[in-house]
């Protein structure tokens, strides 16, 4: 027996009213991150012994600045989606869960904005 209304079934959003969005966006960001992480790994290997001048010159190159901004957006988005699931799994009390979740989300957003700002400052500075 299905107690859901035909409209609710057609929308397919489930009890959390969010459908498969979280799952889907985590997959999308992971697909984007795979080449971006290989790029950053290669870049950090080549930058391992660089000083400030060489590292800044590297980030001032438009292609590196653009890819770094893409990486920041994708990585921190993927990161907050993943940490959200971990918190939901292990923090049981509703109040503490809410507090931990919004602290993590606000913190991640600040890190992402800060990192992007640093990239722009180096790129245009």
């Amino acid at each position, binding site marked *: 027996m299905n107690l859901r209304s035909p409209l609710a079934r057609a929308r397919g959003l489930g009890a959390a009213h969010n459908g498969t969005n979280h799952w889907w966006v985590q*997959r999308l960001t*992971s*697909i984007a*991150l*795979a080449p971006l*992480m*290989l790029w950053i*790994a290669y870049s950090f*290997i*080549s930058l*391992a*012994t660089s*000083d*400030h*001048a060489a*590292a*800044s010159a590297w*980030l001032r190159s438009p292609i590196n600045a653009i890819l*770094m901004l893409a990486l*920041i957006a994708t*990585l*921190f988005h993927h*990161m907050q989606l*993943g*940490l959200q699931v*971990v918190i939901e799994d292990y923090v049981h009390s509703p109040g503490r869960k809410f507090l931990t979740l919004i602290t993590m989300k606000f913190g*991640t957003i600040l*890190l992402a904005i*800060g*990192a992007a*700002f*640093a*990239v722009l*400052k*180096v790129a245009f*500075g």
Partner: protein
Amino acid sequence: MGTRSRPLSPHLQVYRFEWTMLLSITHRITGVGLAVGGVLLFWWLLALAVGPAYFSVVQAILSSWIGRLLLLGWTWAMFYHLCNGIRHLCWDIGWGFEIKTARNSGLLVLAGSILLTLASWMAIYAMRGA
């Protein structure tokens, strides 16, 4: 109806141990570790934006033996999460669910992540020597 009586999934102890379980929890642990690595990426970019003096302090901390040990851990965590993430994407398109295939792909992920980590650090030390 109270929420207390809702059925819950059984605790992990009821399942016979399979080493692929370790791979599964390692994906989560490396994910959390890489979130800390996200803070490191922010810190490194911040240092780059602040200036040469602060950047050399960060560079000195990262190239100390403990810094290098942590970076080695992050390198492996990144490659593990990347390889196992691709394994998850294969499962998402319906490939590799047979027990034998899942075990083999797990071994491949483990071996691949270790090899990529070793190759990365050998490349760094080769450049340093040059």
